[in-house]
């Protein structure tokens, strides 16, 4: 088996040679990012603006594949021990601690002060500053929230629900009165994927519990967590949610609500623009509210999400790459993104009250309050492992293959074992 060791050593030596430093002459930065959805793509314009301000630096933008799993695999393969093929990367907020621990992200602390981060939402900053460094700049913000049919609620003399119990009652009352078999109560995302974890976490929080305790304990209050899962399953069993929500993602739930076939929808801010489009059947009739709490628990809170910008630690152009990240996260660039009407929202809080922006998007101040009250998913390098471990268990509880208690016991046993292995 010695030959294999030799081959390995030779391979490692080859890989080790790849690193080089900044040289003189023109610099080309490669920026890896997913396409920003919206009526127009403002990114190319921003990059040209950056080039104008930094003579001698040009930026090439390389598209990232669409799904989150693929993006993650792309990064793992291309950042893990490989020579740098890109300098600046857009990454999902839940990956920041993982990439930081793996040593793939440049610590921006020498360039970026805490004051520079202060104008961003605290939930976004928390992920960016895991473990004391500054691993990324917040770029886009996302938050889970409740959409409701304002016209239907008004018609029946109701206001947006404060608790899930109230929501169920309202949904049943309205459906009984409307006598429309095609009108569903509440739609949410129950398919076995990351979105399900967001939905379940929100019910955990509303029930006053969480997935990871402060001391790192897994599922510290299993009773409350089981109640939360049982409540979600109950939504389907009572018929408040259709059975297919257990296989639904964002778009599968957004469409029926947008067609006027549901009273409530749990989703993200991007959907509002689509509901307000000229040909939308629910235009002008959609209200937004914080996610409800549980009668026995606390007030509700949405899960935050979004994208950050990081610098590849092995970049040959540190200063230029850091400059690009700071430029894109700065107020002027985020304002330009927001003004272009993209589906993702800024991380800078002040923009939500900016008169010019609010004029075009009157709901911005509401989104600000929602995002400020929202909570991040567990900020840990093991997040992906955490999430993919609980997904099948949560899913099993929702389709009643397991009881909530069983599902949580199984999830906890596995998580404790896997987290132990990461220590």
């Amino acid at each position: 088996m010695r030959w294999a060791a030799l081959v390995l050593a030779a391979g490692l030596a080859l890989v080790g040679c790849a690193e080089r430093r900044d040289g003189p002459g023109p610099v080309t930065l490669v920026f890896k990012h997913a396409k920003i959805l919206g009526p127009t793509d403002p990114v190319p314009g921003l990059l040209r603006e950056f080039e104008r301000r930094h003579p001698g630096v040009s930026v090439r933008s390389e598209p990232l594949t669409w799904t989150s799993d693929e993006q993650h695999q792309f990064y793992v393969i291309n950042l893990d021990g490989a020579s740098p093929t890109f300098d600046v990367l857009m990454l999902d907020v839940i990956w920041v601690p993982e990439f930081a621990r793996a040593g793939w992200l440049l610590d921006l602390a020498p360039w970026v002060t805490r004051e520079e981060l202060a104008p961003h939402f605290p939930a976004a900053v928390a992920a960016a500053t895991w473990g004391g460094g500054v691993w990324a700049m917040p770029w886009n913000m996302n938050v889970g929230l409740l959409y409701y049919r304002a016209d239907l609620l008004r018609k029946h003399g109701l206001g947006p629900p404060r608790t899930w119990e109230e929501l169920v009652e309202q949904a049943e009352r309205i459906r009984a009165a409307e006598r429309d078999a095609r009108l569903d109560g509440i739609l949410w995302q129950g398919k076995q994927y990351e979105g399900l974890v967001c939905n379940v976490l929100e019910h955990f929080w509303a029930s006053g519990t969480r997935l990871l305790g402060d001391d790192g304990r897994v599922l510290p209050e299993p009773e409350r967590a089981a109640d939360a899962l049982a409540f979600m399953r109950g939504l389907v069993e009572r018929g408040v949610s259709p059975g297919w929500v257990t296989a639904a993602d964002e778009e599968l739930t957004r469409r029926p609500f947008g067609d006027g076939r549901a009273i409530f929808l749990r989703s993200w801010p991007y959907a509002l623009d689509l509901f307000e489009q000229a040909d939308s059947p629910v235009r002008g009739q959609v209200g937004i509210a914080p996610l409800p709490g549980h009668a026995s628990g606390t007030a509700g809170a949405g899960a935050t999400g979004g994208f950050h910008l990081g610098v590849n630690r092995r970049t040959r152009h540190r200063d230029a790459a850091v400059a690009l990240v700071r430029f894109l996260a700065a107020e002027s660039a985020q304002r330009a993104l927001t003004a272009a009407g993209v589906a993702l929202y800024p991380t800078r809080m002040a923009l939500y009250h900016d008169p010019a922006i609010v004029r075009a998007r009157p709901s911005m101040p509401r989104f600000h309050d929602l995002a400020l009250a929202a909570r991040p998913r567990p900020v840990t390098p093991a997040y992906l492992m955490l999430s993919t471990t609980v997904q099948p268990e949560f899913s099993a509880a929702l389709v009643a293959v397991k009881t909530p208690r069983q599902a949580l016991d199984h999830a906890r046993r596995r998580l404790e074992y896997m987290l132990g292995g990461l220590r």
Partner: protein
Amino acid sequence: MRVRRRAADVAVLLLLAAWATPYFWQLRTSFTPDAELLATTRVLPAAPTAIHYQAVLERSVMPQALGNSLAVASLTTLVALALGLPAAYGIARLPVPGKGLLLLVVVACTAFPQIATVSPLYLLLRALGLRDTWTALVLANTSFALPLLIWLLAGFIREIPIEVEEAAFLDGAGRLRVLGRVVLPLIAPGVASAALLTFLAAWNEFLFAYTFTATEASRTVPVALALFPGVFEVPWGDIAAASILASLPPVLIVIGLHRWLVRGLVAGALKE
């Protein structure tokens, strides 16, 4: 009697055609405009269209993936043949020390589950810096293609009467010359079958390709098809067109070269 015979033949053909329906249905879907996708009662689309093929060929990674697959499958076949042919001859004809053990290893290798070897191979390719390259896939594919190829070729070589080779030796030819000039022409059909099977297996391979590739630089057809993007809705028509393109080489092989294919398949199973 003859009429009944005919009717039976036709019935069998119809049943087999029915078995192939899933493929034909995908073929139909690939020419069906999106607006008609829900109309399952029509056998053929009312307004056939090529837009799905256009979309796949012009705006997806499929063309590049087809190129990658073609290269990876061809290179795998070549590498496996270059390694496997001499080995098969050695096993069939020459007094190699430890031959019994080698044969056992070859047979055992055909049964190795890819899922068990994928993680060590991943670490190996990672250490060599080969992830996301054709080389990685050719090496990985060789690990399952080579044992089968050796097994098949050794069987074909054993079928040749040894006297043919003896005659060549009397003329003073060396082993390599005998293999190239005498044996190879005699087992050419067998080599063709084995090469076809290897090519097919490499073309269809998914697990290694999915694990070791990350970009369109090396992504093969099955991976591209498995990851076929749907931004807001699943583009069923485009996926159908992509599936048809992905199955083009296998289908051509089945239609045009199935005699060789059958020979290899049957040989693999019967030479127990």
